[in-house]
């Protein structure tokens, strides 16, 4: 199969993730959309690796996974704390940081 198709898939996934981040209010869903964008990137990295015939993209994909795992830990902790203090997981409720 033509590896370019994987790139199309990655673009679609990235677009879905990005629109989720912009549209959804629930922090958990926003978070999942962020993961979706990360994985779309991973997919395109691997596809490029295949297309160019070297392993750099695959190595970078591993790095992304590690970082994503660390991010999940920190992000979930923040969301849980936020929910505990506010009884809501809406990102729009946490809008105190403004002038």
């Amino acid at each position, binding site marked *: 199969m033509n590896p370019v198709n994987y790139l199309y898939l990655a673009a679609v996934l990235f677009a879905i993730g990005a629109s989720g981040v*912009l549209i959804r209010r629930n922090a958990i869903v926003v978070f999942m959309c962020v993961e979706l964008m990360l994985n779309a990137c991973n997919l395109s990295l691997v596809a490029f690796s295949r297309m160019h015939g070297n392993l750099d993209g695959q190595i970078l994909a591993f790095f992304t996974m590690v970082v994503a795992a660390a991010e999940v830990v920190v992000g979930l902790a923040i969301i849980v704390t936020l929910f505990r203090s506010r009884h809501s997981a809406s*990102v729009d409720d946490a809008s105190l940081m403004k002038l």
Partner: protein
Amino acid sequence: MNTENMIALLIAAPLLGAVVLLCGGRRLDRTGHWIGTLLAAASFVVGVVLFTDMLGRDAEDRTLSQHLFSWIPVEGFQADVAFQLDQLSMTFVLLITGVGTLIHLYSVGYMEHDERRRRFFGFLNLFLAAMLLLVLADNYLLLYVGWEGVGLASYLLIGFWQHKPSAATAAKKAFLVNRVGDMGLSIAILLMFTTFGTFAFGPVLSASAAGDTSEGKLTAIGLMLLLAACGKSAQVPLQSWLGDAMEGPTPVSALIHAATMVTAGVYLITRSGAIFNAAPDAQLAVVVVGAVTLLFGAIVGCAKDDIKKALAGSTMSQIGYMILATGLGPIGYVFAIMHLVTHGFFKAGLFLGAGSVMHGMNDEVDMRKYGGLRKYMPVTFATFGLGYLAIIGFPGLSGFWSKDKIIEAAFAQGGTEGWILGAVTLLGAALTAYYMTRVMLMTFFGEKRWQPDAEGNAPHPHESPKSMTIPMIVLAFGSVFAGGLFSLNESFAGWLEPVTAFEHGHPPISAGVIMTATITVMVLGIGLAYVQYGRRPVPVTAPRGSLLTRAARRDLLQDDLNHVVLVRGGEHLTRSLVYVDHTLVDGVVNGTAASVGGLSGRLRKLQNGFARSYAVSMFGGAAVLIAATLLMRAV
């Protein structure tokens, strides 16, 4: 001792006096005035020694010079403290130190009751030093130092009685008006430096005479020098300060504002003769200024009731004669200087006489409150009378010889110009006779008109002490004989010729006719004054008078003119500048601040705290960057 090295002594003696008296403090209060007088006399003695030495040399070999030190030695710019003593400087040195010494002596008596007498003598010595520096300098920059020095001394002495607001104001006025002239001198020096690359007398004057320089540049230099002369010598249009300068003590008026300092302008123009000879337009301006001032001062002098101000108007007018003569070129320089010297004698004598009258009359200056003083002050009357005869040009006395020569030279200018100038000088002679006769009649003749003042102190007119009358007598001798002595075999012209050049003028009418005309107008002036002030009693309060009289009493509206043109004009200028500052300059600055403030107020709203809207801008920015990158690639 080598005579050349004595030149610096001339200046050093009065300078030492000024330093000692002004820094010496109160312990010198009892002796200070004698120290000052002795040092002035010492300077005169040095002057006489140098003079006899100069007489012993050949006419071509009479210029002495002394190089003291290099003042500003820079590459391409050489300013030296060096002196040059030639016949012209020598004449001034003798006049300044001679009359100066007499006036120091006079002041010992005149300022006897003034508790700041030591300081007064310090200032007088300072003046002598500065004035000698002015006439002895061998370059224009050092002359400028002396020029400023006499301005300072004049300021200090006019405002000597600074507790009187009128004196303080007069001092400031004199200083400020002089500043305008000084600016002319500094510009002239700068122009000389750019044109000739030097400002020493020798190179500048010989280069001007050589004719390689463009006439336009020389005219510009000449006009700036004329402006300087106008300021210092109280010529129209910078004449307004001299009348007010009479607020100073009378010896100051005699020394600085009659005999010496105000003639510095005549010295400057005569010294720069080569420049003016090569720039006929500047010369014409000099003649016009002289002629206008001659009549201006005489008219003012006719209307003043204040004896000192009447004499001040006369000074202005007589200096007008000198300036006019210098503008005539080589036929006039010698007579300008000759009139300057004789004027130094008789005008100083007249002022000292006026001071003596004031001394006996409780410092009253209004001539309408004098009258019949000849019985009370015989010596003052006699010396003042001789000075009077000299200034109106009574045949045989000093003023006759010098003024008659100027009138002749004016006619000799030739053409219409010569006739106009001749007529103006003759008219001036008639006016001189008129106003001086008026002063004489109002002061010494007629009935006594003084009354007790508000506190009941009636003046007791009395003759002044010896220290005051002796200088008056000496000056009266000068007033009588100096002119005749100078005219003997044209000795004065012969003496000055190597410095100023001299040509005989050829007036279109014979010298005898001119002399007759001079004497006729003099008699007419005396007669008119006698009809007005001798035959009828003089009213104690001044009558309203004609329009011209009233204008002349106000100095022909010169202060009003200055007020309207300069003060009001200046006020309008500053106001419009303030307006521009407030609207334009402040507008730009405040407008910038306001627009930055408004813009940031709008930008602040972007910071709304919603994470999703930040995300939108981030994605949007990323999208724009990618699009830009792709576009660049495509191109």
